[in-house]
């Protein structure tokens, strides 16, 4: 790159079209977006944190009932969904890499794979939810959880009310997580559209990076939800 082009980048008239006028240079703009995104993710951690805290309190209080309720879930489906999300995180880092390197085909391919994996996760989740409705494990007037023994104590039946608290937490936490997945898929569809039109270049790819941060955060939430909801006292 010749010296004149480097200097030319800093002229008002010639700067990158995506550089907003209140930023001095692209790097500053990108750092600001990144910082803002991380602060948002901090609020999200506290948002989910409250639910995890409620879960922790009730789990410690009603451990046997939580274990009995947890074991009606399929850990195989839960583990599969964990693997699906981890694979989608890999396709997301590939998308960010491709955007930074200006590899349009790789970017579009990675985004498509991410969206497919996102739908796969939601599909498996929907099957699980359907099963809960069939078994009357959805909290509410028709909730049924009778004569289910506490794991490790065959003569002791789980408390129906305490099991209902488990399922309420299960539906709120996984439902909120699924909502984040739906928003993520929506954002990635927009990214795919923008990438298709060639909007992202090695100089400007902040939306891909920010979408990536969001997707990984949703992955991290599931990394905790899986052992906490699916794997309580599985050895009994």
């Amino acid at each position, binding site marked *: *790159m010749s*010296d004149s082009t*480097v*200097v030319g*980048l*800093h002229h008002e008239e010639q700067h990158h079209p995506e550089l907003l006028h209140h930023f001095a*240079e692209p*790097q500053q703009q*990108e*750092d600001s977006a*990144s*910082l803002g995104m*991380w*602060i948002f*993710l*901090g609020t999200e*951690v*506290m948002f989910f*944190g*409250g639910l*995890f*805290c409620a879960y*922790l*309190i009730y789990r*410690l*209080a009603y451990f046997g009932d939580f274990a009995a309720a947890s074991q009606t879930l399929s*850990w195989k489906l839960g*583990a599969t969904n*964990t*693997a699906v999300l*981890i*694979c989608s*995180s*890999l396709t*997301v*880092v*590939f998308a960010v*890499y491709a955007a*930074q390197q200006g590899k349009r085909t790789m970017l579009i391919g990675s985004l498509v794979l991410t969206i497919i994996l996102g739908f796969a996760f939601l599909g498996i989740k929907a099957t699980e939810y359907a099963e809960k409705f069939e078994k009357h494990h959805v909290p509410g007037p028709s909730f049924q959880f009778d004569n289910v023994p506490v794991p490790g104590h065959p003569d002791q039946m789980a408390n129906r009310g305490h099991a209902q608290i488990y399922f309420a937490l299960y539906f709120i936490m996984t439902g909120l997580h699924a909502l984040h997945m739906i928003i993520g898929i929506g954002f990635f569809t927009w990214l795919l559209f923008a990438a298709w039109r060639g909007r992202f270049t*090695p100089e400007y790819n902040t939306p891909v990076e920010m979408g*990536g*941060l969001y997707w*990984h*955060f949703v*992955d*991290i939430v599931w*990394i*905790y939800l*899986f*052992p*906490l909801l699916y*794997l309580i*006292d*599985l*050895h*009994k």
Partner: protein
Amino acid sequence: MPEDTKLSREPTEPAHEHHESSLTGYIVIWLILLAGTALTVIAARIDLGRFNAAVALTIATIKALLVALFFMHIKGAHEKLLKLVVISTIFFLFILLTLSMADYGTRTWS
């Protein structure tokens, strides 16, 4: 021109040079994360007494750290302030959980 010379000394190299050879690194992290998932399931099926939950949460935290450090690029982040945001987030989550547990853990449940 003298004004422009000052500006042209600004670093113009791409900020993400460290990503150049990182595709293999990403695949390694991905394999570790998958292995961690398998390990969580195996550990849950072995009776470790009261340590089952601790082991599950430790594996989950290691996986979360790997995602945050390498996939979300906290390691080698350009913006220093970002690390402060991450550390304060963990700190406030810690306050939320420990103070709540200090309350409920010392109550007598029947």
